[in-house]
């Protein structure tokens, strides 16, 4: 596992640092690391500290300040619920409740089997479709609790099938 991680570190763009040669490149570097692994692990922080000479604690401070950076991996299907103003006044709360109920996860949580993660986003920019959610890159708009349950159940089915294919 450790070897695998070391191997993987080579794949993110550490050159970002060399080009700029100034502290400003720390955030792009972290973004590149997260793009590669899906999250920022402790090991990644140590490795970035090693390249840049910035203390790990400072890097951790930056990682935890920005909402974009995660210190835990996300589930296979990432559900983003829009909680922008338009979605809020059009019932985003009902949407959140329905997901809580159907998948048994709350914001910033991942389901036990690693299939679903739930995130809240400020505005995904299609206020005319409110209330809206994104599942990975697919948009589902003008949702009602009933419509949403159907969507979520279809994803549950998909997860089940995928598990079967993997097992078989």
């Amino acid at each position: 596992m450790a070897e695998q991680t070391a191997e993987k570190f080579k794949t993110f763009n550490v050159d970002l640092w060399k080009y700029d040669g100034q502290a400003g490149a720390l955030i792009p570097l972290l973004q590149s690391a997260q793009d590669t692994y899906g999250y920022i692990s402790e090991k990644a922080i140590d490795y970035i500290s090693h390249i840049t000479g910035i203390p790990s604690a400072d890097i951790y401070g930056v990682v935890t300040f920005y909402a974009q950076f995660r210190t835990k991996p996300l589930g296979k299907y990432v559900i983003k619920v829009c909680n922008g103003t338009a979605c809020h006044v059009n019932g985003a709360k009902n949407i959140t409740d329905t997901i809580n109920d159907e998948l048994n996860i709350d914001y910033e949580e991942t389901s036990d089997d690693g299939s679903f993660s739930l995130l809240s986003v400020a505005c995904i920019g299609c206020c005319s479709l409110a209330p809206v959610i994104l599942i990975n890159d697919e948009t589902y708009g003008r949702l009602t609790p009933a419509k949403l349950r159907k969507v979520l159940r279809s994803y549950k089915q998909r997860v089940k099938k995928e598990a079967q294919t993997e097992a078989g």
Partner: protein
Amino acid sequence: MKTVKIGLGTCGISAGGEKVYKAFQEELNQHAGAFNLKETGCIGMCYREVLVEVSNGDGSAHMYGEVTPDRVGRIVEEDIVGDATIDEWLVSGEGREVGFFDKQQRIVLRNCGIIDPGSIDEYVEKGGYQGARRALTQMTPEQVIDEVIKSGLRGRGGGGFPTGTKWKFTRGAPGDKKYIICNADEGDPGAFMDRSILEGDPSAVLEGMIIAAYAIGAVEAYVYCRAEYPKAIARLRQAIAQAKKNGFLGDNIFGTDFSFNIKIKEGAGAFVCGEETALIASIEGKRGMPRFRPPFPAQSGLWASPTNINNVETYANVPWIILNGGDRFAAYGTEDSKGTKVFAMAGKVARTGLVEVPMGVTINEIIFDVCGGIIDNKQFKAVQMGGPSGGCIPAAMCDIQIDYQQINKTGAIMGSGGLVVMDENTCMVDVAKFFLTFTQAESCGKCTFCRIGTKRMLEILERITAGEGTMEDLDNLNELSEQIKAASLCGLGQGAPNPVLTTMKHFREEYEAHIKDKKCPAHVCSALLTYTINEKCTGCTVCATACPTDAIFGARKAVHMVDQNKCIKCGKCFTVCRFDAVVKD
């Protein structure tokens, strides 16, 4: 030959624009050479996406709304091949969408939804880079600044500081290296003006930055754009690359000795980074926390060098001003506020989307004449302007003009342009709570009053919406608000109490209803509702099955009842009932 243009801004894509584009591509394979296929940005009618414009060779054009992939075949067959428009799908043309564009004046959005944002040639064809050319080859930096001062342009990000004056300060500040920053960290919930501009006309923003750089003597610039706007970032990258290729960026622009480059920095998700000193800290790779001003960025900004920061919309105005003159820009608007303002319309309004109006029109004109009034003809209650730092303006006051001073007088602010419309079904206490939840979560934690004070305010609002508030809570909210405003460093903290203060000022009776009567007049705050079932009930039992606490009882095909002792007010029965038999009060 006919040209088909598909709106592929984020709004268009979310509505399925890429699938429509693909369907047209497939049609094109079958009817090779029958039409040109192009993409464009957002024209503003987000409520009718996916939008498809068909233009004839002679320049006339018409537009279809709510296009889905399965409508594409008929459009190609009847319209493009058969030359007959499909009237029932049209949005533009006779008698449709009356008034949407009539009161608008498009300066910033001049090219949005019209040109292909991926093509610098189309931008140049529309007069693009002519403003920069004029500034660099025919004007001195001082003349450029004077022209911008004459235009009366003020910062469109929310602050409203006169742009020309800001440039003058930065030009006058001592320092060898100066920077230009474009603040594209648009974070207000309900605001999407800057995103649409970057997606629809990125080159206009770049050109504005080039002119600003020339005026203040900067050699390098950053666009700080939120990472949540991947499409806008991609458009910017493309536009920068094309500008370099065409000699609009790089060394010796237009053959002068002026050299200038623009880089992109992606934000990482922190609302406070819209504040200029926090934004600078973020570009420098640090935690994005604001610092004390002065020194202002104009004196000591990025890497401690003089730095000019404007937002996307401000820069997008600049090329037009240089090309058409400051006087023409100043001809629009009021004594205090010149030019136009772009608004992102959201909430309970019939036409959600993007509008650009001259300053001086009234809020009512925007809502009713441009945007078609309130959805389902409900009672118009208030607008929220300026996002989490702004405030609510009640319907009765909406005959005021769009003007910095007049809006400030109501307790709201112009802000960056989010305009959220609320109707009788919107609870103002809930709205205040919504915005405070947002600022509370986004407070960077540096100033104690912002960090802890907003938390205390939020707790009070949560109590009130749960029916546990007291009249004393209202006094505490006022007191905390004053303290947070006075003791916070940046606009986030200083503005955070505004949504609460304005709603308390204009809708005090709603707060009192929550506290004294334990009622939410708009029927939003669930803890204060009572669910009952009326005689419309057919006894279908759907609600009884849905109820998580078995609080609903009754025989099949007979009117059901709710056991109020068991009811947890989750509202499930209300959402599942198909007969409007569940009533909340």
